[in-house]
């Protein structure tokens, strides 16, 4: 380090960021341990009441909702993202590859609000999807997407797709094509090559992408808030409600803290999974 002193200067912004994160985290921890004084924005004395309050059905339900939402979103994102990533990595035409990349990355370029609003238009009772289905006579009355879990999952899948596609594409592009060729020369057809070589070797990538999708969805706010419309409560919408509608900052803080710890726990579990797989030699 002493020989390249400028590196220290390069690192200085990261110290600022780390400081900011640590400060806000400590603030949340501090708030979560303070009593709520109704009618005041300032917290009261030290207490553990906030965490006992969380032991209520409404919060448990929000927790369950969030986990379910994360699960379904991760599952469907994976089911859509894997073929997309595969096509992106393996397409022979460079133009097709960049088209897939562009399509899967556009959600990132739109703001979350704009994107969610578009989904509200598409999924509404008189929205695009219902209009088309009714026009075709497939349904008599509109399907309820708005204010339902289904609608939130659909929008969240779109929201999560880019990172999953990019992560899976990275994993798939690292698979040695000679392994597939070797399997082919040994008599395996395309399906068998995929099932016995490509898929097993992409499992670490799948696990990594799933865990990221999980955390990504867990922290989503605008989508469940707008499409769920208060009917689908998640941790983040509840934090918003408790904190900015009831101004109960201490309870909001403790809710955030529990959510954060849960996310860390989930990521840790996924991580051990990956390390196990690597030990076996899957990648």
């Amino acid at each position, binding site marked *: 380090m002493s020989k390249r002193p400028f590196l220290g200067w390069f690192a200085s912004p990261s110290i600022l960021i780390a400081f900011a994160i640590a400060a806000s985290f400590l603030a949340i921890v501090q708030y979560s341990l303070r009593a709520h004084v109704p009618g005041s924005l300032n917290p009261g004395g030290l207490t553990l009441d906030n965490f006992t309050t969380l032991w209520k059905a409404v919060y448990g339900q929000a927790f369950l909702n969030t986990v379910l939402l994360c699960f379904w979103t991760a599952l469907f994102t994976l089911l859509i993202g894997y073929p997309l990533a595969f096509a992106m990595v393996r397409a022979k035409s460079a133009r097709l590859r960049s088209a897939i990349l562009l399509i899967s990355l556009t959600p990132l370029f739109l703001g979350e609000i704009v994107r969610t609003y578009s989904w509200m238009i598409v999924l509404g009772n008189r929205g695009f999807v219902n209009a088309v289905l009714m026009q075709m006579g497939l349904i008599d009355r509109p399907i309820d997407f708005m204010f339902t879990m289904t609608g939130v999952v659909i929008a969240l899948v779109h929201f999560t797709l880019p990172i999953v596609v990019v992560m899976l594409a990275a994993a798939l592009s690292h698979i*040695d094509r*000679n*392994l597939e*060729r*070797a*399997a*082919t*020369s*040994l*008599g*395996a*057809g395309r399906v*068998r090559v995929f099932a*016995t*070589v490509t898929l*097993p*070797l992409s499992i670490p990538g799948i696990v990594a992408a799933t865990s990221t999708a999980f955390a990504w969805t867990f922290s989503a706010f605008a989508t469940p808030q707008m499409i769920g419309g208060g009917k689908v409560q998640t941790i983040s919408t509840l934090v918003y409600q408790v904190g900015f509608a009831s101004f109960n900052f201490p309870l909001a803080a403790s809710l955030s803290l529990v959510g954060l710890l849960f996310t860390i726990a989930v990521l840790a579990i996924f991580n051990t999974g990956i390390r196990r797989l690597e030990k*076996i*030699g*899957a*990648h």
Partner: protein
Amino acid sequence: MSSEIPRNTPQDSRQHPAVQIDGVAKSFSGTVALEPVWLKIRRGEFLTLLGPSGCGKTTLLNLIAGFLEADEGELFINRDLVTQVPPHQREIGIVFQNYALFPHMNVAQNVAYGLRTRRVSKAETAERVREALALVKLEDFADRRPRQLSGGQQQRVALARALVIRPRVLLLDEPFSALDRNLRTAMQVELKEIQSRLGLTTVFVTHDQSEALSMSDRIAVMSRGRIRQIGTPTEIYDQPQSRFVSTFVGDANLFSATLREKTTADAILEVGSTRLTLSTYQVDMPAPGPVTLFVRPEQCVLTDSGKPDAIPATVALSVYQGSYAELHLDCPSAEGGRVMLRVPASQALPAGASVGIALPQRGPAIYAREDDIA
């Protein structure tokens, strides 16, 4: 294992070829990778495709394997037309440069892979895997993961995996290039032993001329998408038919010369002011005019500088090599101005000494001056 694989007796070689390539060609988006090639590979033959990178040897290998589709031409394996047959039905064994062992399977599972795709029974699979591992001396490594093995061991597993399916042809794609020198020689000997014991038709791709010379029954020297010469290692080394082959395989001394006269067997040339009469083995000799004269270093003999049929030169550098010395000579008639000779270490000469280079009457070859270098 050897008892179950049909062995090739000499009369087999008089029957149909193991691989027949009829005018197979391949281009990639307009760039010709392989000009139409005709080639018959005999049963049990060890044939090497030798050439620099980009010469088309790997393209030809991939066409035989079926990983590439030929633009034109037909390919036969054991008389079966396989041009349109997908790679997984061609019954070909391949050993890749990086071995391409399945990292998520252990050694036994790797070797068993080709038997599982063929729905061989469990008992027979176990027996054949054991035999194949015994063949490459890895019986005790069945439960290991590929990453726990050395490079040489990984290569043996790759070989066992390719052999266990009893392939009609074995393809080797630069399999030794990742091994260090000592191990490489050991593996070459071992592979060659197994190959000839099983009488296995083998196509070997390499850019290493010494590897090609030591292992092959025949060598096809390739450059720029064409087979430039095909023959036994001796024919390729002793009678290269083109300047490219002469310089790519072995060391070569090249002189600028003028061809004055040629008869059916003899050629009269001038190298500088030296007049030489040579008899050559060449199929095609260029027309009289400026030519390139090719001689192997070991065919050149040092004499006095005054002799009329010796090419004059001056010693520039003597490099001691133990049993012999390499003499680097400045020679105005040589292409590039330098000639290299090997002499017994005791006969090494000091720099600046004037010498003559005498050429044998048989051995040198004459190539057209414009004959390509690549």
